[in-house]
């Protein structure tokens, strides 16, 4: 079974077609590269895979499952609950003075003991009285609004970057996006968040669970920083890091969630040859950790040197796919991409 399966993905922005009917599959353990000239739709494809954009057509499956959360009984149940709650809430809100008077105003004599049981009984007895025609209308309106809002919000969150990330797809960005105010280790710890379990209360009260997790996560984070050769700068603030090292930090952060698939968006952009060599080594080591890699790259040297398979995009369409050797000899590719580069 393929780890990532992209089937017939089309992505339109208004009249612009950024990707058209793109299909490919990434097998576990591969380093898979997507290449193509500028504006070929590579980054759009990445953004679509990582949940930032929703494909206009086609599907993206990860580890055998569709990445769009299916409509389920739980969603329906939640929508119903929200609908009922909104309905009750609206009715109560619009009659709050009346209900207050019935339950409390009429029962409480200043300075005397309050008959709690009677108040509760009166309150419950008051509800049917609110059911004048408009009272019922309000209840229905509240239900519709609550149900609708719940479904709309759910619809919007069916396939979001955080859900995709939690499924096991991590990514880096073409124009590095670190948490620049945070230290290196904190950056990595944010990446690790998806697999942390200490809850809000345990963090607030520093319960043993929090302490244990802090120990283990920090040592994991340091290990990851060491993995990308940043082990000695863990406490520095990310924005003070040189550009080349920022890329490494981004990779460490992405790896922190223990993803099964890592998306690298032009990792070698702006690097000199020696840095590029280091990077290639790093990517291989990432793969050797058991992480499948999908990368977009311009540098042919990088792509040809490390990829197991390559797909070529042009004008948003897939024009070729195969092993590096196949791509190198594919006439369409040579013309569309490699040939062009020779001239340019």
């Amino acid at each position, binding site marked *: 079974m393929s780890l990532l399966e992209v089937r017939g993905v089309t992505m339109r922005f208004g009249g612009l077609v950024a990707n058209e009917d793109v299909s490919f599959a990434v097998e576990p353990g591969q380093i898979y590269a997507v290449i193509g000239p500028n504006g070929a739709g590579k980054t759009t494809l990445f953004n679509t895979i990582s949940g930032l954009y929703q494909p206009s057509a086609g599907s993206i499956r990860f580890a055998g499952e569709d990445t769009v959360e299916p409509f389920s009984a739980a969603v329906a149940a939640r929508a119903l609950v929200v609908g009922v709650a909104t309905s009750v809430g609206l009715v109560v809100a619009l009659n709050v003075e009346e209900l207050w008077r019935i339950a409390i105003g009429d029962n409480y004599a200043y300075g005397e003991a309050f008959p709690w049981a009677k108040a509760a009984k009166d309150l419950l007895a008051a509800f049917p009285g609110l059911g004048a025609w408009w009272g019922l209308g309000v209840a229905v309106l509240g239900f519709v609004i609550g149900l609708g809002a719940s479904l709309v919000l759910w619809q919007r969150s069916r396939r979001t970057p955080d859900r995709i990330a939690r499924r096991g797809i991590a990514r880096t960005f073409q124009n590095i996006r670190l948490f620049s105010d945070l230290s290196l280790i904190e950056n990595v710890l944010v990446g690790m*968040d998806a697999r942390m379990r200490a809850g809000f209360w345990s963090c607030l009260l520093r319960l043993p669970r929090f302490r244990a997790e802090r120990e283990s996560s920090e040592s994991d984070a340091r290990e990851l920083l060491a993995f990308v050769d940043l082990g000695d700068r863990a*406490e520095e603030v990310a924005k003070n890091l040189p550009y080349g090292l920022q890329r490494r930090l981004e990779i460490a952060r992405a790896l922190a*969630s223990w993803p099964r698939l890592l998306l690298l968006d032009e990792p070698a952009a702006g690097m000199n040859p020696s840095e590029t060599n280091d990077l290639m080594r790093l990517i291989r080591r990432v793969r050797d950790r058991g992480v499948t890699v999908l990368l977009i790259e311009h540098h042919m040297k990088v792509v040809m040197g490390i990829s197991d398979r390559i797909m070529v995009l042009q004008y948003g369409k897939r024009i070729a796919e195969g092993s590096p050797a196949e791509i190198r000899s594919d006439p369409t590719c040579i013309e569309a991409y490699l040939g062009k580069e020779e001239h340019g």
Partner: protein
Amino acid sequence: MRRAPLLIAMLAAALAWPIAEQFLPGSWSVLDAVKSIFIFAILGLALNAVTGFAGILNLGIAAFMAIGAYAFAILTNDLYPFQIGFWPAILLTLPIGALAGFLLGAPTLGLRGDYLAIVTLGFGEIVQDVLKNLDSITLGTQGINPLPAPVVPWWKPGEDGQGGGLGLVDLAEETQGAGPLLSYYLFLAFVVVAWLVFRNLERSRVGRAWMSLRSDELASRSMGIPPVRTKMLAFATAAAFAAFAGGLWASWLSSTGEPANYDFQISILALCIVIVGGMGSIAGVLVGALVMIGVNSIVLVKLFEWLQSKGLGASGSVFVSPNSWKYLLFGLALVLMMRFKPDGLVPASGRGERKPSGGRS
């Protein structure tokens, strides 16, 4: 720059102040004003969690304060049947505030920053209107009073000034003899608790998730941080502590005041505390509260008193009345502050021109 020495120094000063004050002339007494600094410090810490840490501009924090104050009042005042006393009521303001935050946040926290800002602004207005309009419940603009002061176990003098022992002291009686010190220290303790809460959150996955959203929401989401749920935690926590501050405020005044007392100006004051102190910096917020409220209700008041004693402002013309200049001073201070010290007086680590340093985990 390490914050700990600053915080310890501030704490020590706060602990020592009432004793130092004994040696100053009576007209210098500012203990009451300092209590309002404490309340606003808690409000500032709350707002800092949502605006400073999570980067959500909340322009309606005063609404949660109002909710806390009215909840506290309704739960304690003898016009209502509940009358549960100071401690249960003040603790209940926390979940009540959190619930209000949840109800507002659930449908809106997915909105982009400025849209959310206007929603919180609107919420601030709605809450005032609702409190005003539901006058059979909230007494409208009457204000609910009196409200209980804290009751604490403490050494209590005997009936005739002899003996005495441990007993429950009602701090409302303080002005009549026990001295306003216990409530001062109690409020200080609340600030310390709030500080610990927010410090613990800041240095945990919760705080990191907030800060990552502030720093780069997109990257944060791509790391698997669920934005709405994470923001909700910040929003509801802030709402809870704002409500708590509101309850304390009402207890301190022994009245809710009128709903219009919790208007936009309070939200702005809280925002200024956070920003002047340093967004996302807990020590900064405390300094911000000290500076803003201190200047506002101590320095300016004393200054105007002094000016008045020199005969200024007696003629009633708007130009020579010092009070008429307050807005201008306030506005200028904000503009200059943002121009020359935009990261606040005590910038959060990682902001400003901070050198790399260690010590955070």
